[in-house]
């Protein structure tokens, strides 16, 4: 509860809860179906009937923005969680066993981190896009790139924790490596992983939108914020609302995750910053 007294956690948390609520109850919140076309109402400016106006097909931008939260949050959270699982497993094995296993695994980490973030994500996503598995591609691409920084972080954590007396005691009692990692190491080194997960959600959501903006994420008519910004951009002069509102929703989401992540980092007093470069 102490965490919620921190203004960043409070405001960030409120934004995130609001977004999750919108994504879950989009069917009730959105006044129109996201793919309901009405060609007579193309490019209508914001009004009481259409709060965020309409797009090139006469679809309600507000409804599409609300439904778009499902894709952005869904892909962002899933990719980060998958990256967390991969990073956790690789980091724990690498740090716990050391030696050649560590050497080989860390070279994979080096290679992954040697790629500029967005470029590697694009390189993987484009293959899946070719197979017409765009959303799966974005999910796999993001998690395949994000795990590396956590693997490195967890490795250093595990290397410290595995030398503690309670781990030695567990080993002396005959506990298996799997049990030691699961019951003793992870519970004593999960805090940085939790902060990593939270702080990177903003990056994951932004990267998903970036891919959709490049035409590699959710394909029309599925509403995704990056895709909506992309398809609205040619009409920016006559109908700026088509791109501006989904972009504002995206920025609001990223702000929420950033606030929450930074607040949690302050509250849990973890002096750590992900050194992953920002590719735009």
């Amino acid at each position, binding site marked *: 509860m102490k965490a919620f007294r921190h203004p960043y956690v409070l405001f960030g948390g409120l934004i995130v809860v609001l977004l999750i609520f919108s994504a879950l109850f989009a069917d009730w919140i959105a006044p129109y179906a996201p793919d309901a076309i009405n060609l007579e109402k193309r490019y209508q400016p914001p009004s009481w009937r259409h709060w965020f106006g309409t797009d090139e097909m006469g679809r309600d931008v507000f409804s599409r923005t609300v439904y778009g939260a499902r894709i952005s949050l869904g892909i962002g959270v899933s990719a980060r969680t998958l990256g967390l699982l991969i990073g956790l497993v690789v980091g724990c094995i690498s740090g716990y066993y050391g030696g050649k296993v560590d050497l080989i695994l860390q070279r994979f980490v080096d290679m992954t981190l040697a*790629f500029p973030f967005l470029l590697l994500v694009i390189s993987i996503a484009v293959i899946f896009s070719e197979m017409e598995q765009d959303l799966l591609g974005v999910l796999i691409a993001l998690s395949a790139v994000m795990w590396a920084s956590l693997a490195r972080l967890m490795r250093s954590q595990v290397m410290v924790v595995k030398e503690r007396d309670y781990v030695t005691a567990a080993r002396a009692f005959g506990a298996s490596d799997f049990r030691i990692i699961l019951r003793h190491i992870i519970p004593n080194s999960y805090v940085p992983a939790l902060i990593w997960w939270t702080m990177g959600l903003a990056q994951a959501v932004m990267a998903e939108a970036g891919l959709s903006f490049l035409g590699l994420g959710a394909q029309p008519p599925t509403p995704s914020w990056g895709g909506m910004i992309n398809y609205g951009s040619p009409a920016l002069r006559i109908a700026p609302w088509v791109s*501006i509102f989904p972009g504002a929703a995206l920025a609001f989401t990223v702000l929420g995750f950033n606030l929450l992540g930074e607040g949690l980092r302050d509250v849990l007093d973890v002096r750590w910053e992900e050194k992953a470069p920002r590719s735009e």
Partner: protein
Amino acid sequence: MTTYLFQRLLWMIPVLLGVVTITFFLSRLAPGCPADAMAGQRASEEQRQLIRERYGFDQPLHVQYGKYLWNLLRGDLGISYDSHRPVAEIIAEKFPYTAKLAVSAMIVAVLLGVSAGLISALTPNGWADRTAMVFSLLGISTPVFWLGLLLMYFVSMRLQWLPPSGYGDGGLQYLILPAVALGTQSIAFLARMTRASMLEVLNEEYLRTARAKGAGPVRVIVKHAFANAVIPVVTIIGLDFASYLSGSVLTEKVFSWPGLGRHMVIAISQRDYPLINGTVLFFCLIFIGINLIVDILYAYLDPRIRYDS
């Protein structure tokens, strides 16, 4: 230092080999034969077969991989499926535009970000500090492609102060908006990092000593405080500059900037794998190279850092 540099350069070989391997196999994972993409939809089966034989697509994968490595060693990145021009030639033609944008964005970011951070640190919790930190949080949270569109709409279309997109005659007026859009996140990060680093050093004993010895406030701040707070700032500058040079894909797309990033977007839409792979490889090389330069810079900025030990 020389040993460290040699080790780092040596270490780049397996990392680059890994990067090359990943990009090669990723492109081969794509459905369909590259020869089909190269020949185009209207080509006959004979033409496709001719391309397969000519470029070795009919050979086993490991042979193709070996040939790919051998060609890379000779600086041959392959032939673009779309334009049928050497990829290396396209990169050499387009990269200067990307470099120009990256350098401009970094100049904007360093000037504004470091200044904002210094002002914040010198007036902690004052209105200037709070304003700078609120803007920095907003800057970090704003996606570059959306900010680009906002700038384009308000500054170019509504106010008509600057051209909305393109390269035009290469004048400054075409550069300002993309550079500001690309540099905004760095401005925000640099402001925060400069503030945090400066606050850490501002209470150090050596600053009091410098003041006691009669050093003026500007000298104390610039020569004694900032010089000691600069390392984390240089890290951010280095990482961001490497990211910018290694493809400002989204910004270049928004502003129709004729750089390598935008060309890569076009290559993606046409599934031009040699161009995608060649560009990714080139960007990785730059990325790794700049990270190495930043590491070396540390030793010059902080003489306490000695890599040989």
